[in-house]
């Protein structure tokens, strides 16, 4: 076989990765590691055998060991937030859950998450009653650290099992295995869950189960699981439009456009049932408005404290640059004094533009809906599983890029579903690579303590290298024309730019460290009040610069990758989707 035809075969195989094979009961039960391992002949117990299940166990053990070693690492206030929720749900009656303000970290997740915390608080009480003591704020003994960190690791098994189940039904299990492994080991989860502290592994586990159900043709279960997920964490509303359109078109309507009344009723009843189970108790107590005010605090600004790498970060940066330009040249353009104040404050407080017109929530809403509509129309016309997954990714992506007060952690909403598409073909892989690198780098500022910073960089670098090494050759395509060659080169240059960016950010943090060390030394040696403040302000401004540069650079990549995927989806998809169209119905 010639090299070319070999490559061609690979590509064809890869392009069909996500194409679902009809689910049957037997293929579903082959993936559980425990079954496979015990039936393995004892001869094969060496670590090197590329046995399916043994490798899965290896991945689980390795990742668990790393997470265990990170127990004492830096934790954000989210750790105390979750501990406080354990205390609230354990020591207060349900009627008080959304009213309590003992701690500033009030309960602001939907009820299922509150129930989940209630469940977790039961063993917590037996391990150390002080964990669930409502007044015991900022409790950080070893017991609570070990307990909460362990709960994250254990609940992440939901993600692990979903990823394992993805393998048997896929067209090319070997590629799906790689994708599953990279998702389980994703640096985003390590940074946000195991250092910063959240339960994203668990949440995305539910999402992946839902997507898996959709792939396997069980759309009802998919819809129910997504409704459950929404009641765990409402940020997944970013994805809801795609779900809505997909389930409506592919489940509630026939391909010809007739209403499938049985399906429709089943789905509607199930989803309403889920919401009643979640919100019912609070509706009876008449607390729905209070609950909603906790879930949707509309008093926040356009950007989160640290700018998420989205469109608004870019716009804000342009505004800041324009302001500097005007201040230097003295050009006759009206400047909003509130914006000047906002820019000198750096990261703190709401963003107010100095030069550009102010952005209101309604603007962001309109832009988001506009882009999402284009995607959803396409999904309506082509409601295949792969199309659904792409639309899901793009929906989340649109919300991330143009939404109001978006958190940097929300980038996982893009990266996780996008990973499932990574090996479809080269164009997808490229998009995935750019988005992953930019997205993960955009998460770096969450972790700013020195030792943990090294961990995040080393881990992410290994992960990216692994992903590239394992997947890139399987999907490689030659650029088709000069335009593609130029785009290819620009993208490579962009990716290479992360290395100097990392060096710049590290050097700046080193510099800030020296400045603050010098400031503390000088303030210790005498005039405390005077020497401290100016140098503090100077270093404050410079502390802001690396964060801004990071945000802007990452947002360029994420916007470009968004346009890339969007144009592939809207304009190019049909050429490549011959096979997948056949399973539309």
């Amino acid at each position: 076989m010639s090299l070319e035809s070999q490559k061609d075969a690979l590509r064809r195989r890869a392009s069909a990765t996500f194409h679902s094979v009809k689910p049957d009961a037997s293929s579903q039960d082959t993936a559980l590691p425990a079954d496979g391992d015990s039936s393995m002949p004892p001869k094969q117990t060496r670590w090197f055998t590329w046995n399916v299940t043994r490798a899965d166990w290896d991945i689980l053990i390795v990742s668990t060991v790393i997470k265990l070693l990170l127990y004492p690492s830096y934790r954000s206030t989210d750790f105390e937030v979750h501990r406080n929720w354990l205390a609230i749900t354990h020591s207060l009656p349900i009627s008080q859950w959304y009213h309590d303000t003992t701690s500033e970290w009030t309960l602001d997740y939907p009820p299922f998450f509150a129930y989940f915390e209630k469940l977790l608080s039961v063993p917590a009480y037996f391990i150390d009653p002080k964990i669930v003591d409502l007044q015991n704020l900022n409790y950080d003994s070893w017991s609570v650290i070990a307990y909460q960190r362990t709960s994250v690791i254990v609940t992440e098994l939901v993600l692990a099992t979903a990823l394992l189940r993805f393998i048997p039904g896929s067209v090319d299990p070997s590629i799906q295995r790689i994708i599953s492994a990279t998702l389980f080991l994703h640096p985003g989860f390590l940074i946000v869950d195991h250092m910063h502290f959240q339960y994203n592994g668990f949440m995305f586990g539910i999402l992946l189960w839902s997507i898996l159900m959709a792939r396997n043709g069980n759309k009802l279960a998919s819809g129910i699981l997504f409704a459950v997920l929404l009641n765990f964490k409402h940020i997944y509303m970013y994805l809801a439009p795609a779900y809505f359109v997909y389930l409506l078109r592919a489940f509630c309507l026939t391909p010809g456009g007739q209403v499938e009344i049985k399906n429709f009723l089943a789905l509607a009843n199930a989803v309403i049932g889920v919401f009643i189970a979640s919100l019912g108790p609070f509706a009876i107590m008449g607390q729905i408005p209070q609950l909603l005010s906790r879930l949707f605090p509309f008093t926040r600004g356009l950007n989160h404290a640290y700018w998420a790498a989205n469109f608004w970060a870019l716009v804000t940066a342009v505004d800041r640059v324009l302001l500097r330009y005007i201040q230097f040249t003295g050009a006759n353009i009206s400047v909003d004094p509130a914006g000047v104040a906002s820019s000198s404050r750096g990261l703190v407080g709401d963003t107010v533009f100095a030069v550009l017109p102010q952005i209101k929530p309604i603007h962001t809403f309109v832009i988001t809906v506009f882009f999402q509509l284009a995607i959803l129309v396409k999904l309506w016309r082509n409601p295949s599983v792969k199309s659904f997954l792409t639309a899901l990714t793009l929906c989340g992506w649109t919300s991330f890029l143009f939404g109001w007060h978006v958190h940097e952690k929300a980038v996982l909403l893009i990266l996780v579903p996008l990973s499932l598409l990574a090996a479809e073909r080269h164009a997808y892989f490229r998009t995935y690579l750019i988005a992953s690198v930019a997205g993960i780098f955009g998460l770096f500022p969450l972790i700013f303590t020195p030792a943990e910073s090294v961990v995040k960089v080393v881990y992410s670098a290994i992960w990216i290298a692994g992903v590239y090494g394992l997947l890139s050759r399987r999907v490689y395509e030659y650029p088709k024309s000069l335009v593609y060659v130029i785009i290819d080169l620009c993208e490579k240059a962009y990716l290479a730019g992360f290395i100097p960016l990392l060096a710049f950010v590290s050097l700046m943090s080193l510099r800030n460290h020296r400045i603050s060390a010098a400031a503390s030394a000088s303030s210790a040696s005498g005039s405390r009040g005077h020497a401290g403040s100016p140098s503090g302000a100077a270093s404050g401004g410079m502390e802001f610069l690396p964060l801004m540069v990071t945000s802007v650079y990452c947002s360029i990549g994420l916007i470009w990758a968004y346009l890339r995927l969007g144009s592939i989806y809207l304009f190019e998809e049909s050429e490549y989707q011959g096979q997948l169209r056949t399973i539309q119905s």
Partner: protein
Amino acid sequence: MHKRGMRDWVVPSIVAFAVLLKVCIGVGSYSGEATPPMYGDYEAQRHWMELTQHLPFRQWYTYDLQYWGLDYPPLTAYHSWLCGFIGSLIDPSWFALDTSRGIETPSSKLFMRMTVLVSDLLIYIPALILFTRTFLPSPTRSSRSRSFALLTLLLQPALILVDNGHFQFNSIMLGFTILALCAFARDKDELGAVAFVAALGFKQMSLYYAPAIGSYLVAKCLWLPAPANVRLFTRLALVTGASFGILFLPFFLPPLASSPLDILNPISRIFPFSRGLFEDKVANWWCASNVVIKWRRIAGDGEAGRRWLVRASAGLTALGFLPAVVGLVKAGWGLRVREPSVKKADRDIHEPKPLEVSSTPTTDPPPFISLLTYALLSSSASFFLFSFQVHEKTILLPLLPLTLLMSAATPESAPWKWGCLVNNVAVFSMWPLLRRDGLAVPYVALTVLWDRVVGYNPFGVRAGVGVVEVLGLVVHLAAIGLHLLELVIPAPARYPDLFPVLNVLICTPVFGLAWLWSLKCGVEVGWALGGYSSSSSSSPSIRDSKSESQQQHSGFEPIEEVATGSGAQWGEDTARRRNVGGPDSGVGDGVW
């Protein structure tokens, strides 16, 4: 094509993974974290970086000895100086004289962790890679067995926990020792001597290896034919002397030192014979037997009793490593070269060369190099078990040769079994220390990971297994039982040291048996070597049986790998199989 491309990435991936683990464990706590006024080993190392930065040579070994005075040999001091120099460039406050004592800022901690990691990357990891290339060379052993060996050695939990968790620089000393071993195996004895002097100059603990290495070099000199041996001996003496001289130069040369007698300062700091028989609870003979025999009471208090104990421990230690030394020297004498060309032809089984091409035997290492690793193990284990002033961390020294033997052996072979068992028990023996350092979770995690990587399961005992497996099962059950007991019940007030003592009683027998096993292997390999050399090359049947015993007992025998890999590997294996027991297979076959 695809696979070959991936193969180049195996070693970098393994190293990257090891680095990741070390970085992760570095996030956690270390010896003496936040425990003023004295802190722990971390502060000791940091303090040395501080004092070498600011003081002239003559004060290095004399400055404020009460606060972590420097008590390691000069290479540690130079290394500390270099680390302190780089650190001071970044932030001088980390190593400011006196005022920086006990500094524990996140950035200074990161810098300290990085000094260990970079030292690892510069010395220990290259040494390990060199080891796998030297002792598992390409034609006879697959790249897979090399990767396995590298992974086994790199992830060794005891060393990671002590160096990257507790905080020390043992890997530098061990790295130099491995480099010495590799140099000897590549017949670069002078280089090996320099490397070993570097190990000695970094930590005096590597004296535990000295009997083995010294007797190897003596044996080598005996083994060589007449003019070459004297030349080698002279060169070794000169090189060793010169390296020691250079190492200690600043401490006796007048412009730097006030008088040549200043050399006594480092010497008296390095060998503190005024301390007790043992400090903490250590899993060695003295501490374990002290439960029944109160040694201090028998020896009597005071100077006389202490001296008696020193002598007793020195005598026992010497007795402990004597068999290994004798074995090596005897092998050197018994195998001494009379007809170099015959030996050469025997060794080159894979590419038989015509006799006239064969060069002098000095281009190849002597056959008794396979004894050296066992001798290193016997000697260091004997020091650990019987000598004076042993720390629990010193188990790392016997652990190194044992893990080297293990990594080069096939799974389920004797060195592999002992390597797995003793590694686990060694980590367990350091449990009291690791618990104090707050390293309980890494202790469990890294041990489980390593066992998984090497494929060791102490509880998977099947019918008809050997003694080592049963011993492993019993010891592991006892260790887990002790951990559970400690978790549930607090130590009784009458016996506050109950758990450490029980720990010692579990570990010591295993270490003792491993030491005996190494002696036994040494004798067996020596016998195989000596027996072969004395018999003439006329009876192939005898030689076959000898080479078989050699295959079982030398650590570095080739693996009969299951041919699951590529065709090339399979080809290797068949080639090996054809050679085994063939008329040309010789003694050196196992190693070379």
